[in-house]
């Protein structure tokens, strides 16, 4: 397949002519493919897509999201996942098959206001998304600082193979949970580390599209420059040229999209 140059697009821009498969955020009209969002157009083996740079979160099946319990009925909790749809977490998912609304007290497991990490089990745009917490690392988040970033910045925050988030976690001694919907929970041993991590996350959000961001984050966090700690060098190995600041951050975003649900 003919390779196209990756380029900046705004809605309505013609990306390429010819018989290509439209993937996400593009529309096919006649023999051309047009962008429908602001972002970076790119061609992969499967087709043409645009990596968006703005927009609210639209749920997708199998995304890991962080949500807040806002209400419950006798059979399910209602969860705010900061999208245009509020999600449902069925009580049977938590209590098991033999759940009985008369016997089990739903508030004991998840109270209103609790934060949960959950996976989107089903969503088809005709009904609200359904969540599950039956998986490793899912469930109620006991403590931490809550912050919201744009969902389009999530891949950038995670970084190539989780490099960005690991840098922040290790430098600030914190644990950071990221949902695909842009909700981040930072928990740490001391308040200073947590505050620093939050500042770093905010910086990633604001400057996500600029190059050489990792470098500036490291400066902010006082990460020793030439010889990173051993574990760190191991994980950040693949992005060797990133340290030299010669990379294009956008390219990174694209590759991370698939790994987005790492956390």
């Amino acid at each position, binding site marked *: 397949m003919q390779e196209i140059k*990756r380029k900046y697009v705004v809605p*309505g821009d013609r990306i390429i002519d010819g018989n290509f498969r439209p993937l996400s955020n593009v*529309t096919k009209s006649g023999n051309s493919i047009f962008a429908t*969002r602001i972002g970076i157009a790119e061609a992969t083996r499967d087709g043409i897509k645009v990596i968006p*740079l703005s*927009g*609210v979160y639209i749920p997708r099946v199998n995304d890991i999201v962080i949500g807040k319990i806002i209400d419950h009925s006798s059979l399910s909790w209602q969860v705010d996942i900061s999208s245009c749809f509020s999600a449902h977490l069925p009580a049977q998912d938590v209590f098991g098959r033999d759940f009985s609304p008369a016997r089990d007290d739903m508030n004991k497991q998840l109270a209103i206001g609790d934060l949960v990490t959950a996976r989107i089990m089903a969503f088809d745009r005709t009904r609200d998304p359904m969540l599950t917490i039956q998986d490793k690392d899912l469930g109620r988040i006991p403590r931490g600082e809550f912050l919201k970033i744009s969902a*389009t910045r999530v891949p950038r925050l995670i970084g190539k193979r989780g490099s960005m988030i690991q840098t922040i976690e290790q430098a600030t001694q914190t644990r950071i949970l990221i949902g695909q919907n842009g909700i981040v929970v930072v928990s740490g041993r001391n308040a200073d580390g947590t505050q620093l991590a939050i500042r770093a996350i905010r910086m990633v959000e604001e400057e996500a599209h600029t190059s050489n961001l990792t470098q500036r984050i490291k400066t902010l966090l006082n990460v020793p420059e030439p010889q990173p700690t051993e574990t760190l060098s191991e994980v950040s190995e693949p992005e060797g040229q990133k340290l030299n600041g010669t990379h294009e951050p956008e390219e990174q975003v694209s590759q991370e999209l698939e790994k987005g649900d790492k956390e």
Partner: protein
Amino acid sequence: MVQTRSLIDEQGLRTDGRTIDELRNVKIQVGMVKNADGSAYIEFGKNRIIAAVYGPREVHPKHMAQPDRCVLRCRYHMSPFSTDTRKNPAPSRREVEISKVMREALEPALMLEDYPRAAIDVFVEVLQADGGSRCAGITAASVALADAGINMRDIVPACAAGKVDGKIVLDINDVEDKEGSADMPLAYMPHLERVTLLQLDGILNQEEFNECLDKALQGCKMIYEIQRKALIQKYFGDEQELKEES
């Protein structure tokens, strides 16, 4: 009507010093309203307009939701201080009409079927009015929609043309609107080559109409370039083309 002065002088210049096919100064800034999902501020001559977009978000009241597509709601509003005599802030007949035509001008460009059961709210607030505020409003609103990351087929620029002193001129300002003989606002999707808004206030013959339409289309294309630049500026900075890494 008694004309107190001529709107085009001997050199062919208009009241504000423009030639007959010159736009007023247009400046667009993206992302002015941080609380909104997308926003734009436009200076179109003396017009000062803010457009803010919220959504897609949950529809309230719930019964307004459409099962197969998103609801687009537009509100055009002139602030009390936008004109020389105070404007009553309650929505007037004119504002209700402009809200409606604005919605209809933007709707064809949006892929509303991508967001069923949701709503997109577009707020257009005129801070200072100077003729052609509906065109400037549509121009700003479509930039704000693109900024909000809503799937769009195209961006919608809008521009008016009209007849002043027997001549067809581009981009009618306030004086020309009041004293001239015709005003024709037009919104147009440049890639799809579709007109989404066409109104005409005044009388034109067939020939004049065609000339007016051509002129307004040219104006829309010029404005489109400004919209595009403003968006690229916000998202990619000064760099207009993506550099390929070695």
